[in-house]
């Protein structure tokens, strides 16, 4: 309708002010991206292991709250499940945190140690879809040999690089876990999570050699794989009916949720989807993480809103006489309001773009420094763009009231 893009021309005229505004909005955009990105990364890292399980149904103790606080339950339950129709195989999984000694530490005399998640599985069981698992199945059968997660945090020592280098010389990396002497027999890739800075996979026998107090009959996770074509819901219902013990009904769950996540006697049965959600729910509801990052995002939003408001308000004030002139010429209030809102939209988009680009770089830096899965996603990109626009529109709504002050009778 209007051939002259007044909003853009006015912004462009004040170059310094425009740059300040864009820097401010870009800063707010980066702040929101970082907070949301870190939050997603932390929640994502918490379920990487869950997602990599190949099974369809999982048994855990009803007292377990998350991967970092697992309680054990009798492995008998798992083998009872093996007998039901539709079940192809069952695999026990043992979990424990052990103290790992960095074998390449050259600092002060005392050794550098760190807690690492040890996962015990029966050699030959096909449990994880993780890079490096298939090649190393045979190594699992060796006594006191572990597989090391090459994406663990660097504090465990340069295990991955040294391992690749030592391949030819056939001298394996030796160190201690829980004071038990072990050797690194291979590498796989999982990644650090909230609860675990690094991961080891070993055989169930080796697991009990490391954690000498653990009994064979008590396991942490029971993984059930269904026969091809077997129905998940029917199998779950069969487990609910036939596992020993009383069914306990959680009234907070919808019937749909209760079908995939229920307690029978001394086990809790979960579909894979429910198993992932159970872990996510723990981190979202039972920790302050979600709150802290939402707060951080809100602060970014508020800082951005204040900056844009300041810029728009100054801009309107500077142009008040001009706006009054336009009103005297016969321009309606509506036109002037649209100019201010156009300025707000232009600012938000122009500030978003450099913020977005910078953020991809910061995400990469963070990923390399923390081993957390931080990366840009389309949905987050759109979310922050929307937030940036809302931010600028709110400032626009407040600043635009100033336009009403432009009185055409004052300019003669």
């Amino acid at each position, binding site marked *: 309708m209007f*051939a002259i893009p007044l909003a853009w021309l006015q912004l462009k005229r004040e170059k310094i002010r425009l740059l300040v505004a864009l820097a401010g909005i870009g800063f707010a955009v980066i702040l929101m991206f970082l907070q949301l990105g870190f939050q997603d990364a932390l929640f994502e890292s918490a379920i990487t292991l869950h997602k990599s399980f190949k099974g369809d149904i999982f048994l855990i103790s009803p007292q377990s709250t998350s991967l970092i606080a697992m309680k054990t339950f009798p492995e008998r339950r798992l083998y009872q499940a093996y007998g039901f129709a539709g079940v192809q195989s069952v695999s026990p999984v043992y979990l424990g945190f052990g103290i790992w000694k960095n074998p390449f530490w050259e600092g002060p005399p005392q050794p550098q140690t760190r807690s690492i998640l040890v996962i015990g599985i029966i050699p030959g069981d096909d449990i994880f879809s993780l890079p490096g698992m298939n090649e190393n199945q045979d190594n699992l059968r060796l006594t006191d040999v572990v597989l090391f997660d090459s994406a663990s945090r660097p504090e465990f020592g340069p295990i991955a690089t040294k391992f690749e280098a030592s391949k030819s010389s056939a001298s394996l990396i030796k160190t201690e876990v829980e004071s038990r002497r072990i050797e690194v027999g291979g590498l796989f890739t999982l990644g650090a999570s909230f609860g675990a800075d690094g991961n080891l996979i070993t055989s169930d026998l080796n697991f009990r050699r490391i954690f000498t107090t653990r009994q064979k009959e008590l396991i942490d996770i029971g993984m059930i794989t269904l026969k091809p074509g077997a129905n998940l819901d029917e199998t779950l219902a069969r487990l609910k009916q036939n596992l020993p013990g009383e069914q306990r009904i959680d009234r907070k769950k919808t019937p749909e949720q209760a079908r995939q996540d229920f307690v029978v006697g001394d086990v809790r049965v979960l579909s894979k989807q429910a198993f992932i959600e159970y872990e996510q729910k723990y981190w979202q509801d039972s920790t302050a993480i979600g709150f802290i990052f939402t707060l951080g995002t809100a602060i970014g939003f508020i800082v951005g809103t204040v900056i844009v408001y300041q810029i728009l308000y100054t801009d309107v004030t500077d142009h008040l006489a*001009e706006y009054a002139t336009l009103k005297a*010429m016969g321009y309606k209030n509506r036109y002037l309001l649209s100019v201010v809102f156009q300025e707000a939209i232009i600012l938000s988009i122009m500030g978003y773009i450099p913020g977005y680009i910078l953020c991809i770089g910061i995400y990469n830096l963070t990923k390399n420094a923390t081993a957390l899965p931080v990366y840009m996603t389309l949905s987050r990109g759109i979310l922050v763009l929307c937030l940036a626009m809302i931010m600028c529109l709110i400032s626009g709504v407040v600043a635009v009231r100033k336009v009403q002050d432009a009185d*055409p009778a004052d300019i*003669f």
Partner: protein
Amino acid sequence: MSQEPIIAIDRVNHSFGAGRLRKQILFEVTTAIDPGEVVIMTGPSGSGKTTLLTLIGALRSTQEGSMKVLGQELRSASEGKLVDLRRNIGYIFQAHNLLNSLRAWQNVQMSIELHGNISPSESRDRAESMLEAVGLKDWAHYYPSELSGGQKQRVAIARALVCNPKIVLADEPTAALDKKSGRDVVEIMHDLAKKQGSAILLVTHDNRILDLADRTLNMEDGRLVSLDAAPV
């Protein structure tokens, strides 16, 4: 007279403030201006000239009396009516009041865009030929801050006259200019308005331009005295 006056003012009073601070500025102002007439209004500072101009220009609501502009009664007219009427009036202010972020031709174009569907290229041509008419052919691409005071005021004249308004209101347009360029600016405005048949109401203190007027009005303490038609 055969013609209907283009501005008909009948016993207009105007006051500022309320209650004890209320102060009447205009008293029983009555006059009429015909289409194409050039009227100059003089009078001491503070006598109410600007106030009258803002009433005629529909920039303020008329409080008392009758104010008919272009055949429309402005007293108790709606805000929308007032805004529509403004589009048919060319305003020239004491300060040029150009938009600083726009080039000279864009300032003129802002006025053209208010009037109907004119393609951008056509309105640009009109803006540039109007600037040529006020002697700024080579300055169309400059920003106001790059122009002299007289040049800015000529851009303002181009902006006010580009849409052939029936009425041009000018409030001390030469006050910020030196003698020579002041006279030039008023002559340009006068000639263009005459050519278009626009009526001009021009407020000035400048005695040297009184000769351009068809008629002169004098404002004193809020009362209008027509010098030509003064009772003997």
